[in-house]
């Protein structure tokens, strides 16, 4: 592995986190629009539920972002040690998701949920040591 600059390291990690957050927020937004899957499945069966999800452009965009995130993670892992890249991108994703869910999805992110995001973020860092 060739030595990588600090800027490149964090730029790649940040790319992984940002695409992951975009993927999560887009799919969550899509599921909110589609409505309760349990109700849809009761009404039109499993195939109906799958059709409702797959035909949502917002969902497909989210999946595209998740795929981008996956490939940028692969790219990052070829340059940065896994012991830094994996927990750093995972914990950035947790914090970023809490902010993005509040901002874009207008979720009620109260103290409880902020604490949860911060605790989980710190926990992920500790677990990967």
């Amino acid at each position, binding site marked *: 592995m060739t030595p990588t600059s600090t800027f490149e390291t964090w730029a790649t990690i940040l790319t992984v986190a940002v695409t992951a957050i975009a993927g999560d927020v887009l799919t969550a937004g899509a599921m909110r629009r589609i409505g309760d899957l*349990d109700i849809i499945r009761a009404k039109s069966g499993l195939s109906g539920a799958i059709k409702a999800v797959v035909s949502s452009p917002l969902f497909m965009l989210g999946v595209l972002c998740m795929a981008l995130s996956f490939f940028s993670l692969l790219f990052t892992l070829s340059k940065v040690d896994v012991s830094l890249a994996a927990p750093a991108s995972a914990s950035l994703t947790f914090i970023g998701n809490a902010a993005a869910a509040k901002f874009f999805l207008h979720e009620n992110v*109260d103290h409880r*949920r902020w*604490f949860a*995001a911060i605790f989980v973020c710190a*926990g992920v860092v500790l677990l990967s040591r």
Partner: protein
Amino acid sequence: MKHTLTPQRYLILLAVMLTASVGDTLLSHGMSQVGPVSLHNLPLLFIALRNPWIITGILCLLGFFASYLTALSWADLTFVLPSTAFGYVVVALLGHFWQHEHVSLARWLGILLIVCGVGFVANGPSLTEHAHQQPTEVAE
């Protein structure tokens, strides 16, 4: 409406926690049998698809995605995400009790933090109530 979950919905969240970590563990076990893949022997990836551990792992991850999407359809993203993190705890505990891996003090602390984080959200409401939202809105 308080948005507490029915037992069936807690089962879906349990599936989110378990399938992701079990799926990853199965894939990692399978890939250790297949051997390292590099850009020069990409066809090895197709051979990997015949490995029973890999197949079961992929099925688990499909189950994960289905239950994750189901959970997102009736709960907030900030409610579901901490439970996905609980998967890390499951992997660490599986490693400790099943594979007899050494779990350091830092890792136990990490496990404790994640469990606390999940506990915080699990006590709260699962869905934000929006004034303009029609609760029975169903896509065509």
